[in-house]
């Protein structure tokens, strides 16, 4: 296709490349700025004109951050909550996804309609009563309170149903004739076949929970139960810390963002493909 007129196609290819490279510089600039600022000394952080590359790399922002914020604890809280939310979604969404895709039962189409409807409801609509409910259940300031409302999302059901539709019915019928129960079929036959979908759902759910902010902000008062974004936002909006904390804040953001960016760079296929598939199917 491109061999016919090499001169023209080379020209056609150069322009997009230039534009994309310029765009990429803009996209990366805030991250690069954050990374460099994390390692700058206080005078270099507030220098004008700015010092772009630190002349003296320092870890003092990170040590100050750890003095002021119990980052390991918030990190642990985020990991616990995100892990439990992910496990819940993998199990419960797959179960319903299997029922919707492969079991013929009264009420199935109504439940599927419910799932599709739930996809469109904005999360903010539930916050107020959810707070009252969690307060009555004594679940504020607990991990359970942060996990339960997100333990089975409609998106996961939709994703798993779409993938499970492609499992051949003959395979399930054969197992049934051999006397296998539905749980056995689900757990031993269907789940292994949809592993790529499970991986996609796991990554997307973990990420969503990791970055979740509004509910953890509302449901935690005790700083010991803060997740990373809540701790960072609370510190960033604390008027007592407003001055001269840019270095600490950049170090904090760096620690929140870096693991996600690294995982994303390695597993990017799952992110983008899963997202596009789920959206378009």
């Amino acid at each position, binding site marked *: 296709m491109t061999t016919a007129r090499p001169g023209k196609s080379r020209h056609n290819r150069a322009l997009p*490349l230039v534009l994309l490279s310029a765009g990429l510089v803009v*996209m990366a*600039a805030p991250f690069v700025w954050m990374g460099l600022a994390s390692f700058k000394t206080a005078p270099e952080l507030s220098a004008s*004109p700015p010092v772009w590359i630190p002349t003296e790399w320092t870890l003092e922002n990170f040590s100050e951050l750890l003095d002021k914020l119990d980052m390991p604890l918030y990190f642990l809280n985020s990991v616990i909550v995100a892990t439990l939310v992910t496990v819940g979604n993998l199990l419960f969404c797959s*179960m319903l996804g299997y029922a919707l895709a492969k079991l013929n039962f009264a009420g199935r189409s109504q439940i599927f309609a419910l799932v599709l409807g739930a996809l469109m409801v904005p999360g903010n609509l539930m916050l107020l009563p959810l707070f009252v409910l969690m307060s009555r259940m004594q679940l504020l300031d607990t991990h359970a309170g942060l996990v339960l409302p997100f333990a089975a999302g409609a998106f996961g059901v939709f994703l798993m149903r779409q993938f499970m539709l492609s499992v051949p*019915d003959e395979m399930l019928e054969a197992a049934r004739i051999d006397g296998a129960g539905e749980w056995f079929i689900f757990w031993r036959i269907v789940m292994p076949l949809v592993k790529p979908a499970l991986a996609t759902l796991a990554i997307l759910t973990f990420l969503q929970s990791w970055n979740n902010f509004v509910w953890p902000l509302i449901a935690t008062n005790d700083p010991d139960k803060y997740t990373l974004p809540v701790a960072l936002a609370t510190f960033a909006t604390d008027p007592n810390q407003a001055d001269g904390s*840019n270095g600490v804040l950049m170090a904090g953001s760096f620690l929140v963002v870096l693991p996600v960016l690294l995982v994303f760079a390695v597993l990017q296929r799952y992110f983008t493909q899963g997202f596009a598939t789920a*959206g378009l199917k």
Partner: protein
Amino acid sequence: MSTTTTDRVATSTAGPGPSAPAGRARRSRAGVHHLAGWLFSTPFLVLFATFMAMPILATLAMSFTDFGLRNVTDPFSAEFTGFENYTRLFEDEKFLAALFNTAYFVAAGVPLTIGLGLVVAVLLNSGIDRMRTFFRVGFYAPVVTSIVAVAVVWRFVLDPGDGLIAGLAAEVGLTSPDFLGSEALAMPSLIVMAVWRNLGTVMVLCIAGLQAIPTEVREASRLDGAGAWQEFRRITVPLLRPTLLYATVITTIGYLNVFEEPFVMTQGGPSDSTLTVSLDMYREGFSYFHMGYASAMAYVLFVVIMGITVLQLRLLKDNTK
């Protein structure tokens, strides 16, 4: 989507019938799994009912009461006040400002996000092979990062004293405006940040959509002498319409709920110029515990979201016929 669903259902129920006419009665009973179906559905349904369906109805109920802090421990003593919360809302200048600001954010942010996402996708689809993954990762990276962390970073980037923009301005002998401290510039700054963060989502959707356009169509248009712009206008955009529709709907819903950006970067200021509906609702509900009033806000926002979504589906879909 609905057609494939019914097809699948049809084949799965018709499947066993003709293959084994002798065991028909037994088979058709075996093809129905009422008990298993409901058992597999139960965990999701219980969580859904408790943490979604019930709260959605409770928000509606609360919006007709004077639900306040004392009702958190005693919910049923809240007093019924009819439509008072709703009538007060539309006289509340703060809320009207929040509605306006949210509309501003959506009206400027959505077209920019969709437009730039589409442009990046088209550029990536124009014959770059080797660098493709690299660029895709780069443009998508902000989507996966925490909005809070990103907002904290952008606040510093936009800092008029020692931020990135101020530094660039100083290099060329200019002074940077105080982006987040100015009533005129604060909202545009939040919009630029939102576009930066979300265009990767649109890009990924558009790349998937572009790859579904048959190359024959493009080649035919080129043979007919179409230039790059004509090809974009007459081939790419019309054939991408379903993708763009979907991207527009999800971006609009996300932007109507905008919360973290003003919460971290401006706290709604200066003088409420970046106060959004979600932020106003959060404050009324969880800072002042005017929970009945905040519930009414939540429902107004919900109705607006549903209305706009339905409108977009209608408007953009009919054009394809």
